């Protein structure tokens, strides 16, 4: 029996449900654990700053990104970067303090090329595959973003980059059961085994290592 984990949950006050409500709904759906990840602008709004177990850094420039990584690395278990801009994507993959590069395809292009993929593999930065496009976006936008995601998935498969699947949920209506996420991942050319790893082993390893990557790979 696999332990499924979602590490891309945005809880109240950023999202519409409290972490406890998310936990309750996620357990019912079949997740054994969730990790609350706050976007960096919302970090200070959490009444208890120890609550979110991760942070998703939103940065305008590469310099800003490096500063924020240095600031947040010591305090949170998971450091992910809000992708979209190509320079930010590349800087995130270059930095071994980053755990996950979330949705790099949110810009004009797919956001990852062979250089970025090799850097991500070298620095153990996982690619965060947000499957919320399936239910949050309109038809034309969805087909464009899914095409980018498919390209990114095939690059990750070629260069051995770890992939993690999240529902990027802002409310309980954005949570999907692991079996549904696996069915959606199949449409993005992930095999059943790869989807299984992306939902269980890969996010669990990120939580367990808590920012301490293996020296041998760096």
């Amino acid at each position, binding site marked *: 029996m696999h332990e499924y984990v979602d590490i891309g949950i945005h809880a*109240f*006050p*950023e*999202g*519409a*449900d*409290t972490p*406890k*409500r998310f936990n*309750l*709904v996620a357990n019912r*759906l079949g997740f054994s654990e969730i990790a609350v990840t706050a976007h960096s602008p919302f970090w200070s709004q959490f*009444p208890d700053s120890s609550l979110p177990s991760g942070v998703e850094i939103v940065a305008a420039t590469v310099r800003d990104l490096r500063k924020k990584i240095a600031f947040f690395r010591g305090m949170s278990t998971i450091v992910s970067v809000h992708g979209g801009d190509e320079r930010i994507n590349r800087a995130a993959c270059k930095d071994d303090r980053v755990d996950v590069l979330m949705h790099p395809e949110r810009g004009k292009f797919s956001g990852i090329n062979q250089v970025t993929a090799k850097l991500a593999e070298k620095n153990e930065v996982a690619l965060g595959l947000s*499957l919320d496009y*399936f*239910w*949050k976006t309109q*038809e034309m936008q*969805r087909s464009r973003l899914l095409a980018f995601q498919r390209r990114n998935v095939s690059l990750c498969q070629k260069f051995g980059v770890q992939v993690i699947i999240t529902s990027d949920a*802002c*409310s*309980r*209506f*954005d*949570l*999907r*059961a692991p*079996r*549904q*996420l696996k*069915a*959606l991942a*199949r*449409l993005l050319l992930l095999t059943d085994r790869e989807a299984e790893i992306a939902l269980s082993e890969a996010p669990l390893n990120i939580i367990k290592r808590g920012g301490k990557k293996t020296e041998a790979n760096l």
Partner: protein
Amino acid sequence: MKPLSPTLRDNYRYVAFKLSFEDPIVTRDLQTEIERTAKSLFGDIGVSKLSIRVVAFDGTKGLVRCDFRHVLELQAALASIGKIKNSRVCVTTIGTSGTIKAAIEKYLQIEEKIRRIISSYVTVPISGKAVRVYGKEIDIIPEDRKTVDRADVQFIGITIDDNERLI
């Protein structure tokens, strides 16, 4: 017309699902939304292969029929439903079975779930009016609508553990 012999008939699978919703949904709207989403994902040819039909739906749980080779596609289509009639929903698949009888016995047993409509003002963790209780879960209409607008929902979701005074 003479009916098809059993060996020539289509084989179906019945997928049991559970619906979480903000506003109540009727079967016809659900059927239309499933078809629309499946068409948007797989196109006309894809939908024709799926043979989707909502067999039963009681407002919270139901059964959808599909071709036995395309269960995963149906699961993907159900997972892709985010809104029905401009109200947020989430369709969660519970399990798949080969007959309606087995699907009902295995997955659609009546769940004893207390659902209360309440109306009390709360301040923790957010100021607003608590309106619905499902078991341990409470929905709040907040005074400050910034968060709900950002998440595109109507209610803030908390649990009884977040606000023990509401027990």
